[in-house]
């Protein structure tokens, strides 16, 4: 469903992502893990056609995001970390806009169901600039789900949500995956990955440091009482890399 081959992205001489390859099949949930500047958001934004890749091929539902962007985008739902909604439109009008953009003829029933599942029914006629951060996030997710995309990309999906909202979104992600969607989640919340993801990719300095199933990664380190297993994996990879970089710098200086 998602196939990325030798993807690289450079910004004015700086390499944000280097030679990245992975795939996500229907029903799988891939967690993108890494420190700030690791290349997570760049990867997501390139996959959904916001920024062009410098090299490599990115396929969404079999369509190349560069060669056939319209077809690729028609199968994709993207939820950014800070959803910028249209401040003069109501919650319902955002769904109507999305339906027209994705050419959905009969969307009302699905839209009503989405509003109900995200507890937004009573906010249907509210102008979105009056909504809280968490509610705006829910509106963005409802819009992304409306056309039933085969591929869904989440960038920090739980920001600003209350505990009920977090539980609701997590369940919605599980449901979408069970329905056959391929999902990528980028987040700093390790507990989110432990709860949801089937696969994990650890990125650091634009390169893939580890990619595999959750079970494979967790089997590398034993569970401890004080820290989560995934946290240990994360720190062992990123700190080892930092130490390697520092040692290399010291040797060069010497």
């Amino acid at each position: 469903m998602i196939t990325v081959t030798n993807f690289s992205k450079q910004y004015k001489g700086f390499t944000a992502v280097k030679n990245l390859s992975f795939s996500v099949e229907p029903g799988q949930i891939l967690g993108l893990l890494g420190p700030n500047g690791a290349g997570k958001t760049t990867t997501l934004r390139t996959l959904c056609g916001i920024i062009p890749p410098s090299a490599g091929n990115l396929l969404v539902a079999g369509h190349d995001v560069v060669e056939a962007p319209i077809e690729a985008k028609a199968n994709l739902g993207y939820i950014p970390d800070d959803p910028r909604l249209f401040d003069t439109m109501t919650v319902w009008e955002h769904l109507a806009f999305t339906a027209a953009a994705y050419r959905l003829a009969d969307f009302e029933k699905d839209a009503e169901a989405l509003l109900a599942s995200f507890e937004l029914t009573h906010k249907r006629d509210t102008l979105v600039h009056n909504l809280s951060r968490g509610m705006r996030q829910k509106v963005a997710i409802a819009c992304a789900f409306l056309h039933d995309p085969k591929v869904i990309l989440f960038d920090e999906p739980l920001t600003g949500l209350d505990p009920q909202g977090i539980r609701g979104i997590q369940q919605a992600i599980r449901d979408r995956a069970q329905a056959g969607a391929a999902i990528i989640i980028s987040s700093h919340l390790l507990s989110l990955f432990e709860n949801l993801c089937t696969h994990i990719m650890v990125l650091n300095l634009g390169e893939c440091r580890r990619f595999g199933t959750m079970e494979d990664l967790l089997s590398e380190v034993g569970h401890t009482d004080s820290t989560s297993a995934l946290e240990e994996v994360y720190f062992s990879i990123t700190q080892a890399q930092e130490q390697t970089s520092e040692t290399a710098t010291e040797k060069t200086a010497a």
Partner: protein
Amino acid sequence: MDPALRQLLILRLRGGLRQRLLQLASVRGLLFSLAFGGIIWFLIASNGSSGASVFGFSALDRQAFSDQIMTFMPLSMLGLSLLTVMMTTGPTFHFSPNEINFLFTGPFRRRDLIIYKFGAYVAGVALTSAFITLIAPPQSGSALSVFIASLLTLVFVQLNSAVISMTGHALDGSRLAKIKWPAIALLGTIAAVAVVYTWATPDRGVFDLASDFRHSLIGTIILIPYIVFAELFVAASVSQLALWGLIAVIINAALLRAAIVLDERTTDRSLAENARLSNRWERIKQGGSFFATERTEVRSIRRAPILGGLGPIAWRQVLNALRNSFKLIFVFMGLAASIAPVSMALGAPVREPHTLMIIYVFVAFILPRNLVCDFRGDVSRMETYKTLPIAPWRICAGQLVVQVFVAYVIALTIIASALVFEDKVTTEVALVLAAFALPLTFLIYAVENTVHLLFPIKLVAMGRADFEFLGRSIVEFIAKTIFIFVGMAASGAVGLLTFKMMAVTWTVAGLASWLTLTLIGFLAVVGLQYAFQRFAVAETID
């Protein structure tokens, strides 16, 4: 003022200055600031050397200039006060969210906070007054008198508006508040009767009537506070300036005292107003409009048109225009409708070159800067547009269609106004102008959007002395004007060549010219599509 607040004021002024200097440190900032400086120098030089303004108005002598100020300045200030009464939620002392968080919870009295805010305003107004002094016509007196008069008048305008608004808030729900709208209706009726009277009496214009009112006993009594400030501007000697300046300072001090007293009674309302204004500014920073709807809920429109992908984008901008800019569209239509009668009343009909120049500035600079229903207001939402499964050219066309339609309606209003008030503008001329106004409007906004996407920048100046922003606006306008004039010249040339070489009628030549202008407009959309595709959505590298 509280010493801590004084310190904060100094630090903020210093920070503002540092920010401006940092703008000069970049090549682009320096170039735009130099461009702004050049334009100011040009205005000063043209004022000083010829005694005539850049738009060609003949200079008035000192006496005539003073008469005009004494007659019309108090009336204008009265109009501004009435407008504040009508709007009810006019500007009081605005505190930003940061100021509310830090200062409202600090050990400060409300009185100190109001004086702090007043001090910040005076500092800003001093800069504006210095600017006015630089570009004031030579017959307006010495630089010192213009500066003092401008400073005290602008302070008065702010304090007066604040006191009127606060009085309105304090009277909310009282019996006096109920007579507001009948009183406004009465004033509106009087204004309408005056217009009809001048319409029916060819030798008496609106300005004659306003002048008569100003010099009548009732008019003088009503306008007394405003006349003080007009006297400041026309003071012929230092002693006169000192006398009227002293009275103006006393009036301003009384207004400041009134504001402090009223503020104690309207604290809740003031906080609500501050929150509302802060939300508006936040929306502006995200590319929205200051005039965005204040309602929480509206009746949702159930469906958006598809139209091959063009529909939802245009629909979004329709909602934007209706809910965000509806009042503004009416204001601009009113201004457009009054261009011909006002220019006639001033003795400069619309066919005069300098009047045409002013109309062009209105249509191609003032209107696009204020009425934003296209890409320019959606730069922060480009991420959404880029992920839509819609061809870029359809997104571009969808973005332009509403803005062009609204601007075209305003252009048609100008043409209709000229048709009604100008004898030389016949129906045929008006029809030709209306036909060419459409592709021209299309071209203006295609270029405007292309420039904005290629060199995106905030839509509002960040403070009074954002010279980089002002300079850039002027440079953009000049560049756009060159492009549009080249397009118009090409269109005219094609029409002329068709007429000369193919020996056809003027109608056919005009059609060829119109088609050329339309084609250039469509080519500009190709440029816009390129700019859209090239637009880099905040390239964070997380």
